[in-house]
């Protein structure tokens, strides 16, 4: 068990370090989310008061589409020099490779959110009156669910030549419950604070989803990596 976490942290550390050196993925994700915000500012006039209602959806659109960019890279970069094969034959549990990749991707997306969500609020002139701690929990829960399934399916899709096309098609239907729950909970916490009890039940759904799918992916990842 200890070995599993150690290997996972080493893999995550390697990913973070190489990202720190090249700054490729996070920069691309940030530029992309900035472009999404700009596009939406043309589509919906930011000075209009009704635009407040689309902010919760916008947060998740940014998260999902920029996360896809990172997820596509996370296993494809390992196919160079047969790194993935090296990982498989190394004396570690395949689950620790999954865990390490999840940690790495999760941190990338959190960094992007940490920058792009305040920028979004700023550019759409959105004043935050909601419940901040709960809002942060919702963002973290939703991102974790999305990333844990996304990393699993990215590992699966990486075997195909057209993995960039395959991944979104595999991923979006599977994560639809977490996206629905995340958007609804975010909407309540940002705009409609009276209904906070139903936000809590959405968060319970997200918690249950994360638990089921994380455990399932953790167990099944072995079959994805098998040569």
């Amino acid at each position, binding site marked *: 068990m200890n070995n599993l976490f150690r290997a996972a942290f080493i893999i995550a550390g390697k990913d973070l370090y190489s990202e720190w050196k090249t700054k490729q993925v996070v920069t691309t994700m940030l530029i992309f989310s900035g472009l999404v915000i700009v596009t939406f500012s043309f589509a919906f006039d930011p000075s209009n008061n009704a635009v407040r209602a689309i902010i919760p959806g916008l947060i998740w659109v940014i998260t999902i589409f920029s996360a896809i960019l990172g997820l596509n890279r996370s296993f494809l970069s390992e196919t160079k020099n047969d790194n993935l094969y090296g990982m498989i034959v190394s004396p570690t549990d395949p689950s620790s490779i999954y865990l390490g990749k999840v940690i790495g991707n999760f941190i990338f997306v959190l960094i992007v959110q940490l920058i792009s969500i305040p920028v979004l609020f700023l550019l759409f002139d959105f004043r935050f009156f909601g419940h901040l701690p709960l809002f942060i929990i919702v963002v973290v829960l939703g991102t974790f669910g999305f990333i844990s399934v996304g990393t699993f399916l990215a590992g699966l899709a990486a075997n195909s030549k057209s993995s960039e096309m395959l991944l979104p098609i595999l991923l979006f239907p599977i994560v639809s419950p977490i996206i*629905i729950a995340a958007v609804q909970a975010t909407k309540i916490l940002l705009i409609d604070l009276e209904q906070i009890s139903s936000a809590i039940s959405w968060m319970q759904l997200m918690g249950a989803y994360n638990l089921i799918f994380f455990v*399932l992916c953790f167990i099944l990842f072995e079959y994805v990596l098998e040569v």
Partner: protein
Amino acid sequence: MKLINDDLTAIPEETLLHRILFYLSIPMMLTALYLAFIYTPVERVMGVVQKIFYFHVASAWVAFFAFFIVAVFSIMYLVKRKRIYDVIAGISAEIGVVYTAIVLTTGPIWGRSAWNAWWSWEPRLTTTLILFFMYIAYIMIRHMDVAWEKKARFASVFGIISFINVPIVFMSIRWWNSTLHPVVLGEGGVNESGGGLEPSMLFALIFTVFTMTILYFVLLQKGVYIERLKIQAERLKEKFQEKLAG
């Protein structure tokens, strides 16, 4: 069942069960059509459009059943690693997608006259649509350009995950509807099989469901048969190439 014990090395032949099911399905289909269109009375409020309901419900049931079979055979493939399990799961998913497409086309036709709208983001509809997309993704995995063992493994893993998702999608959207949106359009067309059905209508419905299930098995057997022929042809081709090379 003979079907499952086969080891895929012999050239397949149509079994007796296959022929029985096939010749049973033809008169049953005709009877089902007769029951739905002539035997049952015309519904008072919705009129003739309601006739679609029998095939709609039957297709929905068969689609769910097909996806259940996919999940079962996916797990069996991962445990036993027999190719026939993978073949059955794949064929079942394809049939399930066809039936879901029937559900998703007959639904709006019915909805147009019952609700005056082609589509509503109602829990059942949304869930079915997501289900449809999930199994289209499943079929896309089956068309990946890798060796069949790999493909079979990925497809099994994905089949298990997407089946786990089905109840979650169903419950989550139900929850969303009850807490945030009032149900505007009633409980949706699919739910009507409860209480207030005319006995003749109920009989027609049950008969159609049964017929569609038989049709599912006919299609499944046919699909597995064709898939096995394909595998066999592939094998013979390889053998021939080896012979040419050697």
